[in-house]
């Protein structure tokens, strides 16, 4: 959506210096803008040679049209405006930074583990690392908490490095969350658009499937289906390394998340397909597929984006919950949910609460950040939002 910078109504105070030279500066009060900012932004700077130039009556007419005459007319600049609103909210920026850091943490996991000098799989048993009072034992108190050698300490029992496992676990947790969200978004958008666009029997069929998916008790179904899915995936092309549990979680979470989005998209499409540009496309003989993908879906992407950002944290927690319950990612593959499961399974959290606190804290922070970001995106994309 950023391919066209001048499509943004708010451009004059964002990028005046770097803008294309032939671009005309036109100062129009923006209804989304607070008066003080408008005044500041529209004060002509003496050094800047560009002032409002109306070279032709046509451009004067264009200026008048810049005001949001209809909701649809401003839709193009929606994402630009949204980005500005996000940048202006401190919470949103903080959430965005946390999310970015978590993603970096996951991407750079091998690098970070190498810097630390550890890996997520090496077990360190024996009296040098673990207290042999219990078998398997607690880490020695030096290794139980952050230290220079092991940044987040060692796991009780097996003595694996918690920091490395957290980093690699972030990869798996975030991958599952993002991929399953992607599956849901693609399914939800396409099926919702098809239901809304075709109407009639197609709509009836898709809507009833949606109802079915929405009516199922999610957790129960996912719990019972995950092991089945995993056994089905064994022996297929996906059966290498730790891919089976990851793929099964992606598929199951993805397939159970699309219905709500599809319903929202369907509603949007019902109104979009009444617009004359859809009729125009039919009139010049565009195929149904072309109308759905070129005319309709680009106009629902705002809503889809909001739901996608809200769906990611849900899927992070769902992965954690399933792994915690023991049907998701399993030892030795690390994921945050698996680590929570490990902390709980041997009652380790009673004697070594740190082991529980690390994945739980990371989960809370990440989910909170994604949720706040989702809220910010929703507010930013809502034209009726009072926050400017």
């Amino acid at each position, binding site marked *: 959506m950023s391919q066209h910078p001048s499509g943004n109504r708010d451009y004059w105070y964002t990028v005046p210096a770097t803008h294309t030279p032939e671009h005309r500066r036109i100062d129009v009060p923006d209804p989304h803008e607070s008066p003080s900012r408008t005044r500041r932004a529209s004060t002509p700077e003496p050094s800047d040679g560009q002032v409002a130039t109306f070279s032709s009556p046509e451009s004067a007419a264009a200026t008048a049209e*810049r005001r949001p005459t209809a909701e649809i007319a401003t839709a193009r600049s929606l994402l630009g405006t949204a980005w500005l609103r996000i940048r202006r909210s401190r919470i949103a920026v903080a959430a965005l930074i946390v999310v970015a850091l978590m993603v970096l943490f996951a991407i750079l996991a091998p690098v970070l583990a190498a810097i630390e000098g550890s890996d997520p799989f090496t077990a360190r048993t024996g009296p040098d690392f673990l207290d042999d009072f219990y078998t398997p034992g607690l880490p020695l108190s030096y290794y139980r908490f952050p230290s220079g050698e092991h940044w987040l300490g060692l796991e009780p029992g097996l003595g694996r490095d918690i920091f490395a496992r957290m980093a690699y676990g972030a990869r798996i947790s975030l991958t599952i969350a993002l991929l399953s969200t992607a599956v849901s978004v693609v399914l939800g958008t396409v099926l919702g658009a098809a239901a809304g666009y075709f109407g009639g029997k197609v709509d009836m069929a898709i809507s009833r499937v949606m109802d079915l998916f929405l009516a199922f008790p999610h957790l129960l179904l996912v719990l019972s289906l995950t092991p089945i899915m995993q056994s089905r995936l064994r022996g297929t092309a996906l059966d290498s390394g730790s891919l089976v549990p990851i793929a099964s979680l992606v598929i199951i979470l993805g397939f159970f998340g699309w219905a709500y989005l599809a319903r929202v998209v369907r509603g949007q499409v019902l109104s979009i397909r009444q617009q004359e540009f859809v009729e125009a496309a039919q009139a010049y003989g565009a195929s149904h597929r072309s109308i759905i993908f070129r005319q309709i879906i680009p106009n629902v992407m705002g809503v889809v984006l909001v739901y996608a950002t809200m769906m990611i944290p849900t899927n992070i927690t769902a992965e954690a919950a399933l792994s915690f319950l023991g049907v998701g990612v399993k030892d030795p593959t690390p994921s945050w949910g698996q680590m929570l499961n490990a902390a709980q399974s041997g009652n380790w959290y009673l004697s070594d609460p740190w082991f529980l606190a690390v994945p739980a804290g990371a989960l809370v922070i990440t989910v909170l950040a994604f949720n706040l970001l989702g809220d910010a995106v929703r507010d930013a994309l809502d034209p009726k939002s009072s926050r400017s």
Partner: protein
Amino acid sequence: MTPLLQVTDLTKHFPIRSRAFRSAGGVIKAVDGVSFSVDAGQTLGLVGESGCGKSTTGRLLMRLLAPTSGSIQLGGREIAELRRSDLQEYRRRVQMVFQNPSSSLNPRQSVGSAIAAPLLAQRVTPAGGVKAKVRDLMDRVGLRPDHYNRFPHEFSGGQKQRVGIARALALDPQLIICDEPVSALDVSVQAQVINLLEDIQRDTGVAYLFIAHDLSVVQHFADRIAVMYLGKIMEYGDTARVFGAPEHPYTQALLSAVPQPDPAADRSGRIRLSGDLPSPADPPRGCVFRSRCPVHPRLDPQRRQLCNDSVPSGDIACHHTDVAAEALATTTR
């Protein structure tokens, strides 16, 4: 000479559905037995009040709707019965300009790709390539080449309508259906767009079906006029004749309702229609206009009965044009 477009007895009935059960409660007769023809390079003006079925007629001709019955022939070929997949060739020859320039352009599609879309959809590759053709079309309708990558919201209503016209011209159609192309525009811009449409007709010989409710626009522009009321054509004839000597009482009333710019003008001769437009689900029997006809009450009972009993037909759908002419003479004098 066979006309370019020959429409015979075109009918569109929309079934009324109650919400819970699909009990057919009757039909809305949106278009009810409409016939007219458009010659190559000519303009037919289709006028009438809101809800009289003129836009539905346009959509039927574009085959955005399937007609209930009747015939649409383009260059002698019947298209009313064709299925969607067989319509591609027809769509190349007939295009449409829409009423609302804002909603007829996809807000997320650049102007250049909107104009190119018909070419891509029809897999037409013009000599010199699609881009050159689009630039040519943009030049034709008075858009600058640097508008190519801009988006609709950056344009004024008049410019957007120019984009819509360029898009309709992309496939070099023989007929363009203009569904109130100027009624959403300012008066000054209206004139520009009308002039553009006239220039294009002079240069390319395209025919127009011009749907409007603004009589002054049509008077200026159309070669022939069809006046619609409640899904039927009331009066059909050459523009000069219809405007100069309207014979149907409805046309007379419509023409006398054209706003007079001069505040000192005498308005006493105005024919005021009383009552509301009857529901198209339950139109009056016989002549559909009789419930509001200013002439109807003046008729003697025997002639009045004729209006109730039989549907008038012909280019002037009135049984009593003689009385109408008499009445017109007395009201205007």
